């Protein structure tokens, strides 16, 4: 077991007790990003406490999950950025052009930019990064899929990188704006995977100084930092201590007692409790997919659409979302996040109807009931194995799953909830040992639908991860997603994506719950912003406040 659990439990108690006695009063409004009780000061080290899993590698090219995106935002930068409206903005690339047929893209790089090891940020570096992502030995999944249509990067000259595509990719810029395709020093990559995982070398406002596993990563300021607009101006903070605190109660208590300045993944009741104190709440829902339960259609019982519909009709998550999340989020009826303009909803498919669920199961042959009240067919119990990643699902979400377990039991489902850590969870998915799973997937733009529901995505990426957990294989859906990906016409894309989402919803492949929750609570710091790409926080303009 990787958790030094008794220590955590004891320290959690100690912290809770210290939080009770500590002062949490303040005159802040709990909104906006400034703290009126103090004044900003230059320097100092910010302490960030994350509840996400500790990455096994700090290079987001390897694998490619959200914890890696969170931390790498501080030291790696992408080719392009994206503002809150969804407009792609220059970053390491100052400009780009695309050919008529959509198969050739030229990216122009800023002159004179260097990585923190002195290596120039040039076209050769971009080429090396794409090749690194595509190299099976890297074991990439998220970045690998994002550059899947790039057949080759040609070095035209030092500042011009030409991307040759195998097929038009309307989502290319969005894909390249993510942390998982961020550009790092080719000299750093050359050191080999172990060295690069320990301390990737980028162009960001901070540099990885040391990594103490199971405890923290120390980041120090990049004194020569150049901003996306070309001005040289380092961050105000001297450094960031990135601590791993898996327990939500401990994190919140540490924030209240002033031991940390920023926490992620707070419990909804903590968010509500922090209102009206000097704690600031940042709500930055992730783009891409909504948070949903995927039903594995590759094996019984969910290979039968009637059984899937019965599960969804009997789940009734809404009352639980209302109470457990205390108004922090709203129910979703879409495969896409509400921040995606192309999101398509159909609430009518998800109404609670136990009688209908029972009738569907009777019709599907699950007619018998065993001694425990679960339905059976040919002596086989109607069991749904549901591995839950405790690193990704906050306690409120785990409670919601228990409620869904209780509700679907009325219809005769036996849901077996299996809480596990992230690595065990990946293993369970890889072994196909699940009937239901909640797997957050973040990607900028509606192209996430192709990653999640295209039949190609049932084939594992080099990391062994496949994103189509519902294992949807529908040629009509594939055709829509391919056409949307190739289309350069915004209106046509939106229409194709709407059709694709209708197929996903009407096939009862997923039970949407709400947006992928992405909340941050800050105290004693101002100027914390989240990026318009995958909603990770950046501390380039953050400053500690005197209180």
């Amino acid at each position, binding site marked *: *077991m990787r958790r030094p659990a008794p220590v955590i439990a004891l320290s959690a108690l100690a912290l809770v007790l210290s939080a009770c006695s500590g002062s949490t009063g303040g005159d802040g409004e709990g909104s906006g990003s400034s703290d009126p009780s103090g004044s900003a000061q230059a320097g100092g080290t910010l302490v960030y406490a994350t509840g996400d899993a500790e990455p096994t590698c700090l290079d987001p090219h390897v694998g490619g999950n959200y914890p890696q995106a969170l931390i790498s935002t501080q030291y790696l930068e992408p080719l392009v950025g994206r503002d809150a409206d969804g407009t792609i903005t220059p970053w390491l690339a100052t400009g780009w052009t695309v050919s008529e047929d959509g198969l050739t893209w030229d990216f122009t790089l800023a002159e004179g930019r260097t990585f923190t090891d002195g290596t120039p940020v040039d076209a050769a570096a971009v080429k090396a990064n794409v090749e690194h992502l595509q190299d099976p030995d890297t074991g990439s999944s998220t970045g690998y899929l994002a550059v899947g249509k790039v057949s080759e990067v040609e070095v035209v000259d030092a500042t011009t990188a030409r991307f040759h595509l195998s097929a038009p990719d309307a989502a290319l810029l969005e894909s390249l704006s993510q942390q998982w395709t961020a550009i790092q020093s080719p000299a750093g990559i050359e050191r080999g995977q172990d060295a690069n995982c320990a301390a990737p070398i980028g162009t960001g406002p901070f540099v990885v100084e040391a990594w103490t596993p199971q405890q923290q990563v120390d980041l120090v300021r990049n004194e020569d930092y150049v901003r996306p607009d070309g001005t040289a101006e380092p961050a105000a903070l001297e450094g960031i201590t990135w601590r791993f605190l898996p327990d*939500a109660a401990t994190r919140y208590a540490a924030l209240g007692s002033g031991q940390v300045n920023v926490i992620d993944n707070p419990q909804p009741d903590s968010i509500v409790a922090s209102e009206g104190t000097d704690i600031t709440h940042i709500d930055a829902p992730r783009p891409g997919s909504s948070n949903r339960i995927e039903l594995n259609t590759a094996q019984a019982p969910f290979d039968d659409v009637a059984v899937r519909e019965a599960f969804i009709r009997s789940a009734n998550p809404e009352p639980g979302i209302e109470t457990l999340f205390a108004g922090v989020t709203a129910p979703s009826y879409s495969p896409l996040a509400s921040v995606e303009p192309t999101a398509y909803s159909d609430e009518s498919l998800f109404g609670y109807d136990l009688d209908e669920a029972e009738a569907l199961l009777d019709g599907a042959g699950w007619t018998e009931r065993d001694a425990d009240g679960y339905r059976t067919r040919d002596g086989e119990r109607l069991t749904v194995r549901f591995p839950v990643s405790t690193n990704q699902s906050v306690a409120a979400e785990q409670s919601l799953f228990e409620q869904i377990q209780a509700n679907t039991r009325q219809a005769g489902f036996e849901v077996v909830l299996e809480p596990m850590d992230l690595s065990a969870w990946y293993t369970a998915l890889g072994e196909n040992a699940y009937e239901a799973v909640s797997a957050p997937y973040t990607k900028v733009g509606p192209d996430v639908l192709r990653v999640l529901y295209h039949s190609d995505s049932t084939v594992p990426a080099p990391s062994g991860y496949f994103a189509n957990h519902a294992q949807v294989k529908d040629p009509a859906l594939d055709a829509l997603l391919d056409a949307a990906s190739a289309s350069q016409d915004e209106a046509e894309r939106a229409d194709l994506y709407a059709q694709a989402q209708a197929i996903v919803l009407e096939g009862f492949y997923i039970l949407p719950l709400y947006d992928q929750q992405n909340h941050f609570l800050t105290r004693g710091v101002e100027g914390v912003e989240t990026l318009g790409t995958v909603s990770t926080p950046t501390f380039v303009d953050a400053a500690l406040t005197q209180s």
Partner: protein
Amino acid sequence: MRGTARRLGVPGGVAAAVVALMLLAVVAPGVLAPGDPTAIDPAGAMQAPGWGVWFGTDESGRDVWTRVVHGASSSLGVGLAATAIGTGLALVLGFAAGLGPRWLDVGVARVVEVLYALPTMVLALLLVAVQGPGVAASVLAVGLATAPGYARILRARARTVAGSGYVAAARLEGRSGAWVLRRHVLPNSLWPLVAVVTLGIGQAVVWVAALSFIGLGAKPPSSEWGAMLNAGRLYLTTSWWLTVCPGLVITATAAALTVLGRRLGRVAS
């Protein structure tokens, strides 16, 4: 029997009553709490203890009293099972070492010493790490981890009894080894163990609850007491009853079993 009851005294009687109540919760939880421990009611979530909801409700609106009562079978049952494994193993090890040939005694003693060198909880964590979390794993883990302690007591008792005058006398009378074992060694070695085992059940309940508390034991929606403590911990500042109620029940169980064990020990001597 009446003499035994008198010698338990008032504290012993109270302890015995608490244990009897716990056993009733294990055997027939419906008598104490007729409801369904997994029945949810989101609209009635987080109610403080009051009339009809003696221990309040949790974040899903489940009745905490019903869950605690129905959780007795997993918590106490698991404690009993773990102790049964521990004593079963100890019987074999202890008697083998105490009555067997010298080389066996030395061999068993070394094994017991090595196991003894590891704190019980560390040994249990190690076993759960190897086997993977779950109720069966924690039962086995706590059982194995407690065995060395019982084995030592048994070995010492068995040696004392075997070396006693009345055993020597019986042997001189020409009684068989089996007769001596049945008539003298077993009863005189085992009776003191009853008191220790009663103490041990309380300890095992706490250990199993501890394993569940850190997420290595019972799975949701089980209302095992340690798992309830863990789930309620997140709401400690707002809804104290989610941790205090199961916590008090664990304490009461362990205390009752300890008092009873002490009293039984005194009765035995």
